[in-house]
């Protein structure tokens, strides 16, 4: 029976947050699910991914319907919820559809915020966990590495990850287009509300040199400043601070403008015309709009920043077309690889059979060969082996050549019957996975196996 790839899961679109929370609540659900995957007889390999926005179970097996049912009941057990309620929120993908889905998830095309970079790290984490628990095998190893590869391609070949989504992210991106790097830049926060803190956190991460906090109530300024190793100043000192600052974040609740045109104009000469960037996230605005007319001064209020975000959304849509194309390309490639996998068990069974015969015959002739020296014995053995290899070579090449054809199943069947491969009762499937897991590749010398070696050597570098 053919091994199939199945994916069941839920994301922000199919399941309400309460349900996702139920499953994400316990930290070691992953371990439990992977444990069950190891125990369940119909499931060969499995990976479990759980983040705050999605749950994905990816597994391979032959009797997928039973396996799927078992997985759903495992999940409903973990989330302590009725099975039908859970089933209603799940999506299911089989085979190449599942491959495509996992590629899209890894490339962050399926995320709530398309292009957000965290998901790839989370998938790598999940995969690492699965390899540690030894639930990931030949197919999923390959699949996950291809998924990382796709994500990397999408990231480098499209601009989908570049565009800004949140206000503070948009502000930082703009600041970078003005200042290039924010290191050694001085930030002045005017108003110490929650928004200001958020922006400050974001700017800190960009490595700004210093942060100064000015607030109407000085205590609050000191309090916020303490959190960022910043300096607190009083509201009357703003004039002086304007000379020093490069980026000013305004977020006071003031009804009037806190920063006026004349005030900034006066500071320009002392600043020696260094660039000055106002991020005005206050409503009503803190910075007089005319300030933007001053040379080398840029003022962005909350609407302008929202405009930047909307623009990015449009761009993102264009880029996502490109990204989907990359995903489809890679799904095709993976499909081709999967097909080659269908001939692997037969080829290995052929080789096994030859091996058994050689061993048997050598044993039988043991009495005659007993007089030979060790070298001579070795020579006889290798002679037998190379004869067997030569005989099998053409049938194996023939089978490999048929991989792309629909007739491959017939040829496999004929080959198995010609060589009487299914009589000795060993389950070939398990041999494949064992052999492949041990050696890292199924067929020596075939083109595919080289690719295998490169890709399945271990988890990619983690971010």
């Amino acid at each position: 029976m053919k091994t199939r790839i199945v994916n069941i899961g839920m994301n922000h679109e199919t399941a309400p947050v309460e349900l996702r929370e139920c499953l994400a609540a316990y930290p070691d659900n992953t371990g439990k699910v992977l444990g069950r995957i190891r125990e369940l007889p119909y499931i060969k390999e499995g990976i479990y991914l759980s983040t705050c926005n999605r749950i994905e179970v990816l597994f391979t097996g032959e009797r997928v319907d039973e396996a799927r049912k078992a997985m759903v009941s495992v999940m409903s057990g973990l989330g302590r919820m009725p099975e039908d309620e859970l089933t209603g929120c799940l999506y299911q993908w089989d085979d190449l559809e599942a491959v495509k889905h996992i590629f899209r998830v890894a490339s962050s095309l399926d995320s709530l915020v398309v292009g957000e970079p965290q998901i790839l790290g989370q998938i790598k984490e999940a995969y690492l966990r699965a390899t540690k628990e030894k639930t990931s095998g030949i197919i999923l190893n390959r699949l996950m590495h291809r998924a990382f590869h796709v994500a990397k391609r999408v990231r480098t070949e499209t601009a989908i990850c570049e565009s800004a989504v949140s206000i503070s992210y948009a502000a930082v991106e703009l600041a970078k287009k003005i200042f290039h790097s924010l290191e050694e830049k001085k930030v002045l926060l005017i108003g110490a509300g929650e928004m200001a803190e958020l922006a400050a956190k974001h700017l800190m991460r960009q490595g700004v040199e210093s942060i100064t906090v000015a607030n109407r109530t000085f205590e609050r300024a000191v309090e916020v400043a303490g959190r960022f190793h910043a300096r607190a100043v009083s509201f009357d000192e703003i004039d002086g601070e304007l000379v020093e600052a490069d980026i000013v974040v305004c977020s006071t609740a003031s009804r009037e403008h806190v920063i006026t045109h004349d005030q900034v104009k006066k500071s320009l000469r002392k600043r020696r015309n260094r660039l000055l960037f106002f991020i005005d996230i206050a409503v009503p605005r803190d910075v007089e709009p005319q300030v933007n007319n001053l040379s080398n001064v840029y003022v962005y209020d909350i609407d302008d920043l929202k405009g930047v975000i909307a623009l990015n959304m449009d761009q993102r849509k264009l880029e996502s077309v490109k990204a989907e194309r990359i995903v489809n390309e890679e799904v095709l490639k993976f499909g081709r690889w999967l097909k080659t996998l269908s001939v692997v068990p037969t080829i290995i069974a052929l080789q096994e059979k030859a091996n058994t015969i050689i061993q048997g015959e050598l044993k039988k002739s043991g009495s005659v060969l007993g007089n030979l020296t060790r070298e001579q014995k070795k020579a006889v053995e290798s002679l037998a082996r190379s004869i067997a290899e030569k005989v099998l070579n053409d049938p194996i090449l023939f089978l490999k050549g048929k991989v792309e054809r629909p007739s491959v199943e017939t040829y496999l069947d004929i080959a198995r019957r010609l060589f009487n491969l299914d009589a000795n009762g060993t389950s070939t499937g398990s041999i494949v996975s064992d052999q492949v897991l041990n050696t890292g590749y199924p067929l020596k010398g075939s083109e595919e196996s080289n690719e295998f070696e490169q890709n399945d050597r271990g988890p990619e570098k983690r971010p």
Partner: protein
Amino acid sequence: MHSLLFYLALFLDLIATGGYIVYLVRQEKWISRWSCLILLAGFVFHTLSLGYQYYTLGAAPVLNFKSALSFFAWCIVFVFLIFHIKFRIMVLGSFVAPFAAFLMIVSSAMPWLNEPVKPVFKSLWLTVHVTTVFLGNGLFVITFAVAIMYLLQERQIKQKRFGSLYSRLPSLATLDSLNHYALMCGFPFLTLGMITGSIYAQMALGSYWQWDPKEVWSLITWLLYAALLHQRLTVGWRGRKAAIMSIICFGILIFTFVGASLWTTGYHNLDHLGTTGV
């Protein structure tokens, strides 16, 4: 021989320019990498062509307008390649390469120098004079290109309307410091070029300064660039003002180069270099 090399260089420059323009649209790194390599190959052929001419003429190959343009283009590409190695601003090529290619095309349409070279041109001072002046000019081409890029980018950020160039151009600070850097390097070359020029004039004509139109315009250009540099260093002119000023300066520079070489009647007039006695 030198013309074959010259046409090869022209051909490669054109391909590189095309590549850089495609890069501006398509934003794929390999395009700019290849464009740069092709430009480098063109530069090598151009260098060989100039070297061969220098060897056969026995004087710097800048004696008519054709070769002056060609040498100017060579200096621009030389300076650009150095900037590329130092700063790795890919998109700069999309602005500078077309300029160099344009000069090469104009140069290719003009006749080669046929008259024998007067012995007075076979002076090392002349070579030093034109090399320093043109290297300075090449650097000023960079200030000009960067200033244009600055104004384009600044406009988008100021008006909050982001076109397709927004993501393609570097940040304002990068462009401004490139402008500053090119100016800082270009000005000494221009100064040195004028000094060596006057020494050469003293040796060839017996006088350091003759109020020749090109000399006067060069002095004006020099003063303007000096003013820009002074404002930058003391008052802290930067950004938009500095960009506009460097565009104006460059305009005067081009007028000095083209206008004074072709339309005025001084001894710098390149059409008369070969025939009129110096």
